[in-house]
């Protein structure tokens, strides 16, 4: 019984804390014909909270990396993120250029500085 539970639990967790809390907003959009004003104060505050959460996740993935990314020194990861972001700002706010430059710096720095 507990073996089955161990197998099923990741899928149950996916539905409970991944699928349902995400899908509820699409469903609300379908059910409420007119709905919330996308410029309302409540939407503004929720968006700010969500933006801060995503930024927090991003920074954690860079600073407290796991696995293979952790074999590349922290200084290289931070420098790569900074260079990528600078390139994004300089080149017409292009996501593509930002990612490309960040990855190139990470690869070069990792190649030169990894143990």
């Amino acid at each position, binding site marked *: 019984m507990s073996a089955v539970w161990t197998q099923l639990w990741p899928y149950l967790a996916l539905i409970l804390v991944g699928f349902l809390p995400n899908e509820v907003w699409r469903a609300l959009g379908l059910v409420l014909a007119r709905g919330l004003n996308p410029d309302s104060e409540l939407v503004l505050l*929720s968006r*700010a*909270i969500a*933006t*801060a959460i995503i*930024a927090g*996740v991003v920074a954690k*993935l860079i600073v407290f990396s796991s696995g293979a990314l952790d074999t590349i020194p922290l200084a290289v990861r931070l420098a790569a993120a900074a260079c990528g972001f600078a390139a994004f700002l300089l080149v017409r706010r292009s996501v593509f250029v930002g990612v490309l430059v960040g990855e190139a710096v990470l690869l070069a720095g990792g190649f030169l500085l990894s143990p």
Partner: protein
Amino acid sequence: MHGTAAPSEPRHPFLEGLASACTSVFCLVLAGTYIGLGALAHDLGFTSWWFALSTVLIWAAPAQVIVLSSLGTGGALIETAIGVTLSAIRLFPMAVALLPLIRGGARRFRDLLLPTHFTSASMWVESLRLLPKMPQERRIAFCNGLGTGYMGTAVVFGFVGYYLAAGLPPLFAGTLLFLTPMSFLVSTARNSRALVDRIAFGLGLVIGPLLTWYHVQLDLLWTGIGGGVIAYAIHRLRRMVS
């Protein structure tokens, strides 16, 4: 050499949507994003099928990053759910704006369920651009084709990233893992047009790692509430002053 396309039989709108998805720039963006997410899923110990299912069910990259990093590092379930639902609020105005465009072509309510589930930033942008030129009765099938094309791309490249991360030497696997934070760093910055979003973005970058460093419980939730509320307060104060 026949330079002109045969006007005779119009393609089925589903196939037209599928073709439109595969030739769009978002296809490339999705491929890159999901290679990174697939690598992250491998790194955090999820199975590749679990990750593919999460792409099909959640179909929102920011929510998937939160689920992966939170569940993968033993975060609290309630914190994961709150983070996901806050990141998903943006889907609501998208669905509200998209559905009136296709509602006219629906004979039954259930015809709208699939297009509703496909609602995402890429699908929304392309639909608003392409649907108004299209007859009502073709729009739902077109949306389903578009959504299927995007989701199929994401699932396939999720597997690619997952197995590349498993097989590559550490430096290259590390480069794949870096795709997720790097692409979200710049794409979130690009989506942050209003000052309140930019302040929240900057605060989140600083508060997130600090709380983790000090081993604060529910760190992501506090990052969101702290960064979001401070940014919102600054926005209100500025408006009161001006």
